[in-house]
């Protein structure tokens, strides 16, 4: 099976591991990720102001490219998933922004074929590919190196889940998909309450001190529940755990763990 794939800027630079092990693992599981052509950075944050058009164009182009290549677009990075899915919802809704964005993209020839983009593409997160296209049972069967001794805390952060009205990814207050993933690779999920809290994201760049208390609160909650590492799909979460955390709880990418369990990665 082939699915269109959008890696995003960070997976090309700081988070190469997230990307590499993601592709290889899925390949082993029978899914080929096909990178769409000429993609640009999604912008990393969804522009909320109702008059924003320019900041959404790169996402629309990526979505349009996927529309013409199977109609599905897989992403791994939580930020890309959030931005693509929310922009896609705007286009599907077809309000003023969608109309004006289409006018511009069609007139300038950025939409190949000249058809308007109306939110036709389905944006899928990597975890959803594992659950819905591979299946947990098939994944379990493919595990050669179950991560038996690991007690992992699922760290969803904010971007995968909210706003739920658009993301429809999992129960926003009590998500389960990462826990299911952790079980599938043979490790033990540790339930802790703050797994859906934000790590501090971009605020960490200019004012790292501001996010330290937040990361600390999350880490202490996870440690108390017995987690030894936190599993994430988000480069920002991993960064803040590593640089602005207490140093005791490591953030690990889902794809690194997956590749290890599948025996691809040492």
């Amino acid at each position, binding site marked *: 099976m082939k699915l269109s794939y959008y890696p995003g800027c960070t997976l090309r630079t700081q988070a190469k591991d997230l990307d590499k092990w993601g592709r290889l693992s899925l390949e082993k599981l029978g899914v080929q990720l096909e990178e769409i052509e000429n993609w640009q950075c999604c912008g990393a944050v969804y522009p909320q102001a109702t008059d924003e058009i320019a900041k959404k164009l790169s996402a629309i182009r990526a979505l349009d490219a996927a529309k013409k290549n199977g109609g599905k677009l897989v992403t791994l990075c939580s930020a890309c998933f959030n931005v693509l899915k929310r922009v896609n919802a705007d286009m599907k809704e077809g309000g003023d922004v969608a109309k004006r964005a289409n006018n511009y993209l069609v007139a300038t020839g950025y939409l190949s074929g000249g058809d308007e983009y109306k939110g036709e593409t389905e944006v899928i997160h990597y975890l959803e590919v594992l659950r819905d296209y591979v299946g947990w049972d098939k994944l379990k069967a493919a595990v050669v190196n179950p991560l038996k001794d690991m007690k992992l805390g699922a760290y969803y952060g904010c971007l995968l889940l909210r706003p739920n009205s658009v993301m429809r990814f999992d129960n926003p207050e*009590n998500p389960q998909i990462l826990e299911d993933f952790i079980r599938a690779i043979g490790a033990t999920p540790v339930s802790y*309450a703050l797994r859906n809290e934000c790590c501090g994201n971009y605020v960490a760049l200019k004012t790292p001190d501001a996010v330290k208390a937040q990361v600390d609160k999350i880490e202490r909650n996870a440690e108390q529940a017995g987690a030894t590492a936190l599993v994430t799909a988000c480069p920002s979460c991993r960064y803040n755990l590593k640089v602005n955390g207490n140093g005791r709880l490591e953030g690990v990418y889902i794809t690194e763990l997956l590749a290890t369990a599948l025996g691809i990665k040492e």
Partner: protein
Amino acid sequence: MQRIGVFVCWCGNNIAATVDVERVSEILSHEYGVVYSTNYQFMCSENGQQLIKTAIKEHNLTGIVVCSCSPRMHEATFRKTAEAAGLNPYMVEIANIREHCSWIHKDREEATAKAVILGRTAIAKLLLNTPLTAGEVGVTKRALVIGGGIAGIQTALDIAEAGYEVDIVEQRATIGGRMAQLDKTFPTLDCSACILTPKMVDCAQSEKIDILAYSEVEEVKGFVGNFTVKIRRKARYVDETKCTGCGACMNACPSKKGLNEFNMNLNTRPAIYIPFAQAIPNVAVIDPEQCLKLKTGKCGLCQRKCEVGAIDYTMQDTFIERNYGAIVVATGFRISDLKYFNEYGYADNKDVITSLELERLMNAAGPTGGTLLRPSDKKHPKVITFIQCVGSRDISGCGKPYCSKICCMYTAKHAMLIREKYPDTEVHVFYIDIRTPGKNYDEFYRRAVEQYGVDYIKGMVGKVYANGDKLMVQGSDLLNNEQITIESDLVVLAAAIEPEPSVRRIATMLSASIDTNNFLTEAHAKLRPVESPTAGVYLSGMCQGPKDIPETVSQASACAAKVIGLLAKDKLKSNPCVSHSDEMMCNGCGTCANVCPYGAITYIDKEFRLGGGKTETRRVASVNEAVCQGCGACTVACPSGAMDLKGFANKQIMAEVESICKR
């Protein structure tokens, strides 16, 4: 040739501010058939009615059009007025120029033009009206009360007190409802069971009241004064006439894993059980999901222990059919589902509970014998945090848009009782607004604050999460403009209430209207609050809207008064606007009988004379006018156009449509 009078009402400023009433009456005076047209400030007033009567006599009017409010408001009034002046009451048409016109439009020109059109339409119909005479039907002097909570109990007791027979149909195994589950009641803090159970006993002892517990309404036919109701008596597997309520079976039962619904599932009960000590009827019931004998065929211990031989594993549901003159809906409420409120951790933490669960945890007959212990580790909670408005006043799609009304008071009650009984306990209450209208209510709440030192925090909780064996309650303190986290041992959610879901089915059977929140609609929000718009159907208690016990009891008694008023009549005037079949056009196809919701249509074989002395016998529809409710379904369904409705004939409706369409 008709002589029509037109009467345009100002309704004070309600109509006159938006509609040029002078012009409307002037224009309508030129309509075909109109011989008199006027306008007046309040047509429904004594003077207004006198004006109509005088005009009818002076101008020899044969019919009148009143341009005023909705016919639901004053059609009956003006019909009486016309009748008093010697007109047939069905020669009255109402043009609704208030709700349908002045109240919904702003532009005076347009509203006036529309009022003229509505007036013309009524005139067009009236030109084709014929005098109708209402027949009379008898009244079955027996009432049905659906629901055996405090609302149903009070209504039934009051109806019985007036000397009429009344049946209570209750879906659960005992009457008593939610009130039986409560510990104490505000604002006087008397024990709920102590004031409720005597009323339950009164019901059981009354010769006029028949309690049909563990039963459900299955089918309703008929109309006001003459309902026929089929009732399902669910299999208890215990003979109600034999069981003495001794409880030997409960002790013998080896299956003890069934969740105890009465205790809000906080503990378990045997498969054969009596819901609570004061249950009425005090008769055991078997939960077929838990009973080993019913599930596997092996066991039968309870049957062996039963000294009176009351247990019968082969029992089946049975059906009875009874006739009633009036039906009271008293189906009550339940706590709404908290699945969309995971931010408060209800599903994940045993020590996050609803207020109704707390009632059971504080009740002497509850799972902890009245000692407040938290569910997870049975320890006494030292810090308790209450969260109000959980799911109420919520338009996000997760909750209910309305205020549940009772939560402010019961939370104050809980907080106070806990501080009274366990003075070493810290009690916090997060609130958005405190709503305590009611006699001695605000004083009650203030006592919780001032005398009992309950910490009321204006703000809302954003998150409840477990940290070790503590529950971290993170919320805003708006008056201090702070975000606070309270390390709590127990969190109590004042969850929104919602109508008991079975009410939907019942409302459909009764053709009683229901709002978007599944509350039954009143005939008039202010002036007919205990009646459904469907004649003969009455509303008692929470099924109509959130209310506390005092209000429920008041409404229940009001409802009983209305029922008694109906049952006291020997005859009811029937609605003459019923359908009839033109036998020459009817081909006996059967379509009308299929669509008739009241079973009013039957078929008869009738002989028709053809030319040349020949006859033929044909099957034709025949309408039972006493049963027909004039809904008009048959007139629409009839393929040959034989069915027509008196007072709303097809040609009358078409005349109205034509009048609206022509310019």
